[in-house]
């Protein structure tokens, strides 16, 4: 093709993610992934202060259990659950589970995943955090 041909080029948009509801929801989904890292940093800080002795740990714990800390945990929890649900959903779509060569119906996959997830959560609560 003639390289001299004149043509008009649009600049890539920097605000495309505000362009429609689905793009915006995509951004929320990605930020839910980031929220998981934010909690990772908080938990890391807890581990670090644990290594520095009770004074350091209690100071951080005070902040985390303050109203502001609780608000932050609540927001992070909502994002984290959103992350879990979207992540399980995508995994099931990419590698659809099958039994005896037949795809497992979607309803069963969804309920099955959630039951296993709750069971694992219970396991973590009881055997790692020794709740109850």
């Amino acid at each position: 093709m003639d390289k001299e041909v004149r043509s008009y080029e649009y600049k890539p948009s920097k605000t495309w993610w505000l362009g429609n509801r689905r793009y915006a929801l995509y951004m929320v989904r990605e930020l839910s992934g980031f929220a998981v890292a934010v909690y990772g940093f908080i938990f890391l800080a807890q581990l670090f202060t644990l290594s520095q002795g009770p004074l350091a740990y209690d100071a951080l714990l005070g902040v985390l259990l303050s109203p502001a800390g609780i608000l932050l945990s609540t927001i992070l929890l909502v994002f984290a659950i959103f992350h879990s649900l979207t992540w399980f959903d995508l995994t099931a779509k990419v590698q659809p589970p099958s039994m005896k060569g037949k795809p497992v119906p979607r309803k069963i996959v969804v309920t099955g995943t959630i039951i296993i997830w709750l069971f694992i959560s219970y396991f973590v609560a009881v055997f790692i955090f020794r709740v109850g």
Partner: protein
Amino acid sequence: MAEPDKLEAVLWLTFTLGGFIAALFIPVIIVINNLAPGIGALSQEIVSYDSMLARLGPLARIFFLIVVVASIYHGMHRFKFVLFDIGLLKFKTPIYVLTYAIIVISAMIAIYSLILIPNP
């Protein structure tokens, strides 16, 4: 010309694994470690210094190390793309370096802390 990008493949698979670990464990950890004692649904005793130490046997330490690093890895990997999405693709290399530097440093702090935490 079409050489498989082995580095991207490894980064992506780690990201996937991290996403799965975070999806399974982060919600329950937030609930028990922060929210429930915060709102009084569980006694704050559960997160006291002594009970934290008491549960940190070798296996629990490895478990927490994996969860922390997986979550930070997963989130930062995605955050990198969010930065590109809002128009920062021209800083691709510095953003890559920064993202993975944060991950590596976090992992080192986690290992350091978990080694240093006294045995119950």
